[in-house]
């Protein structure tokens, strides 16, 4: 198993290296002169040239690329051209917000999607099944930003039961930072009120973001269970007298879930993309809003770092998915040898 994990990690490296190169190329074709942006409106050409030298923008492109690779490898993303602060620091501050949101969405999607898919499959062609099918197609067709606005309209403006935006109430404030996850930190600080506040703020963005995932997971669970139910071993288990619930919820589901796990990996990319729009609408202080701001202000240093970080997260998720699959189905790890 350890060898399998190692193999998977090594396989992810070339793609990550490719990503470093791609981000560098991207950063050099972003329009506008970063040095000029940095210097501000009334800057003299001399000031701009000085800044250019300071950021190494005057060196040959190949040398810049080598420097870039070296910096990325050491986790040094330079200073933001927009704010002047170290990019790594800004990202470290924002990454937990995005991860908290995406994990919450993934959690919702998985723990609602799998039971929904299972129930649908067990009631094949029944009313529940049709409902779940509709949900699973509709969930993928809905525009996240529109859903977010509609949810805000109903729950924050009309009914006034959930906060409109932000991660916490200004009055309640943030708990002392330990992990950066507000839900965790508030509990560490022993502040259930903060926890509840954070949860209420998380609700709408997480629901919005979870819907496409929920749809996908419910759909693949459904088809996986339907497929598994046709298998001889299910008939055999029934003949041997397995309990109905155990048969459906454990015996069949575990086979069906191998398909679902792959989907979770593929979903993560979509989740990050979705987070960009969702964060923008809910004023969520995460990487998505950071990326949009970086793009709009031509802050290539920041954008490059965001892309890199997301790529790494993505790679980690994919390795995790592979490993999870090998844990669920013992044949996977052996086939890979």
């Amino acid at each position, binding site marked *: 198993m350890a060898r399998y994990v190692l193999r998977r990690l090594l396989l992810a490296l070339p*793609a990550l290296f490719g*990503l470093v*190169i791609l981000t560098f190329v991207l950063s050099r074709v972003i329009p506008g002169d970063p040095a000029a942006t940095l210097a501000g409106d009334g800057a003299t050409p001399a000031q701009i040239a000085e800044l250019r030298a300071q950021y190494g923008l005057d060196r040959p492109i190949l040398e810049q690329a080598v420097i870039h690779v070296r910096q990325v490898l050491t986790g040094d993303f330079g200073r933001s051209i927009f704010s002047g602060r170290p990019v790594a620091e800004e990202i470290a501050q924002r990454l937990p917000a995005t991860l908290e949101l995406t994990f919450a969405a993934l959690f919702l999607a998985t723990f609602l999607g799998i039971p929904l898919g299972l129930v649908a499959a067990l009631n094949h062609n029944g009313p529940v099944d049709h409902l779940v099918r509709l949900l699973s197609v509709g969930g993928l067709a809905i*525009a996240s*930003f*529109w859903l977010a*606005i509609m949810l805000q309209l109903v729950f924050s403006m009309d009914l006034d039961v959930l906060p409109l935006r932000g991660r916490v109430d200004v009055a309640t404030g943030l708990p002392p930072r330990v992990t950066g996850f507000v839900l965790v930190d508030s509990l560490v600080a022993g502040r259930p009120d903060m926890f509840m506040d954070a949860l209420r703020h998380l609700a709408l963005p997480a629901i919005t973001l979870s819907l496409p995932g929920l749809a996908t997971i419910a759909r693949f669970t459904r088809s996986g269970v339907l497929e598994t139910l046709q298998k001889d071993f299910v008939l055999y288990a029934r003949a041997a007298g397995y309990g109905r619930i155990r048969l459906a919820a454990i015996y069949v589901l575990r086979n069906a879930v191998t398909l679902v796990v792959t989907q979770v990996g593929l979903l993560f*990319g979509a989740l*990050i993309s979705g987070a960009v729009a969702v964060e923008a609408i809910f004023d969520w202080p995460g990487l998505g809003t950071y990326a949009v701001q970086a793009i709009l202000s031509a802050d290539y240093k920041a954008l490059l770092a965001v892309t890199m970080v997301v790529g790494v997260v*993505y790679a980690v998720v994919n390795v995790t998915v592979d490993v999870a699959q090998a844990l669920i189905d013992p044949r996977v790890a052996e086939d890979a040898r």
Partner: protein
Amino acid sequence: MNALRLLLRDPVATFGLAIVLLAVVVAIFAPWLAPYPDDAFESHLLRRLRPPSAEHPFGTDNLGRDILSRVILGTRNALLVAVSVVVAAMAIGVPIGLAAGWREGWLSETLMRVTDVFLAVPQLILALALGQLLAPGIAAAMVALALTYWPFFARTVFAETRRLRSALFVDALAGIGARPSRILFLHVLPNAAPAVLVRATIGMGFTILTAAILGFLGVGAAPPSPDWGLAVSEARQHLPEAWWFPTFPGLAILLLVLGFNLLGDGLRDAADPRLRRSRR
């Protein structure tokens, strides 16, 4: 033709096809169908933000424009963007997939690695960056979307080509001395076509969604263009009073994407007999 008959036997897929056909008809005849065709660009400040009524079934927006008309007129843009993006992405992705799938070797490896790298970057961020780079606007957004969607075609065609290359009939053709290019274009490509078609249909839905997000974030269509995503974005300032303002353009996106997705699912089932059997 056989596939079409199979498709029409599935009521859900037929529903999807109906939506798509309806959208195409609406797009073509938009100026004649819209009650206020001039509202694409004209504003009427006297009748701002009116709720739905007989006169304006979807209400009016912040500039007094009839929302129903703008939804109808927006269909053309949405479809145009989707078709151009998917066709462009196909034009890039299909040849790359064919080339990479046909021969093994460094070229194939390199092509697929590049594809993987593109797939590892979140599409939206890449599209945002590219869109920004090409100066914000609908054209830039389209180029950006095409540049982020081609890897999906490359992957699909790659997988199909690899599968077909090992198929017996390709060996037989090579055996009787058919040239590789002939085999590729006359035999492999038509066999890969169903998979590409399914991918393209689903890509249409995906593109409409992503283009709407770009429009919403201000990197896509620019005012006063009757763009659905843009409309939702403009509506945000007028909530909660004008609930109808974001609702109807959003529903239009939902319906059209739903149509393409249902159609894509139906096509996939019709093209893949194995799936068809298990669906029952």
